[in-house]
C-alpha cells in the first residue's frame, strides 16, 4: 500500500513538473487594447481567443493584394484599417494563431503600421 502511494506521488510530481516546464518562460497576456489618441490597437491573438467574453476580437483579413485589420475591445469599441502596402501584407500573412498583433491607422482609415510578433512570448492557443 505504502509502495503504491509512493509511486502515485512520484508520478503526480513528475506530471506536475513536466507541466511546469511546458508553461515556463515570460508570457505576455494582452487583451485587445485600443488607443484612440495613439491611433493603434494591439493584443495577443491566442490570449484574446481564450478570454471568456464574447466581445473581443483581433484579426486581419487578407485578399492577397489588399487586407484590413480589426480589433474590438472589451468595451465594444471597434477600430479597423485597410491596406495594400506590400510590407503590411507580408506582416499580415505571417500572423498565426499565437501571434501578437499591433496595427496603426490614420484619419482616412489606412493602416500606417502593422506589427506581428511570433515567438515564445504569447501563450499558445488551446
Amino acid at each position, binding site marked *: 500500500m505504502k509502495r503504491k502511494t509512493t509511486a502515485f506521488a512520484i508520478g503526480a510530481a513528475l506530471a506536475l513538473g513536466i507541466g511546469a516546464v511546458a508553461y515556463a518562460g515570460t508570457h505576455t497576456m494582452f487583451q485587445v487594447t485600443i488607443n484612440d489618441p495613439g491611433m493603434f490597437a494591439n493584443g495577443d491573438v491566442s490570449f484574446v481567443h481564450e478570454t471568456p467574453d464574447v466581445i473581443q476580437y483581433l484579426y486581419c483579413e487578407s485578399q492577397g493584394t*489588399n487586407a484590413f485589420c480589426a480589433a474590438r475591445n472589451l468595451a465594444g469599441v*471597434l477600430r*479597423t484599417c485597410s491596406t495594400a502596402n506590400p510590407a503590411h501584407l507580408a506582416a499580415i500573412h505571417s500572423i498565426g494563431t499565437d501571434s501578437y498583433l499591433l496595427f496603426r491607422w490614420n484619419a482616412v*482609415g489606412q493602416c500606417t503600421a502593422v506589427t506581428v510578433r511570433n515567438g515564445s512570448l504569447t501563450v499558445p492557443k488551446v
Partner: protein
Amino acid sequence: MNRIAFVVIACLGVMTTFLFYLRIAERVPTAGNSGEAEIIARLDRIEKSIAQLAATRVGAPSATGSATLAAPAASVLADLDGEPVAAARASAIRDGNDIVDRALGVGQWTADDVSALAQSTERLDGEAAAAIHARVAAAINSDRLKVAPSAVRP
C-alpha cells in the same frame, strides 16, 4: 601539213565557239535561275521587314516609317482590351463607393454590405479595393458607421 594545220585551227575555232556559247548560256536567265533570284529577293524583303518590326518593338523609329505602322496596332489593342477593362474597373469602384455611401447614409454597416462590397471589389486591384475599405474603416473609427452585430467584421 597544211591540211593538218587547217583541221587543228578548225577544231580550235569550233571549241572556242562552243565555249563562248556556254558562257553566254550561263548568263541568260533560265526559268530555274529567275525563280531562285525571286526567292532571294523575297528573303531580302522578309529580312528587312523583320528588322523593321524589331526596331518598332523597342521603340526605335526606322527610316521606313514602321513606327507609324505600330501605332494603329497599339490603338486597336486599347480598343479591344484596355477600355473595357478600365470601364469595368471604374464601374466596380463606383459600385463599391455606392455601397459605402448608402451605408453611411443609414449609419450602419450590415452583413449584406459586407458581402456586397466583397463582391464588387473581388476583381479590383489591391490599391482600389483598399481605398474603398479605408472609407469604411475611417467611418467606423470616427463612429460615423456602426457595425451591426450580424456583420461581425467591418
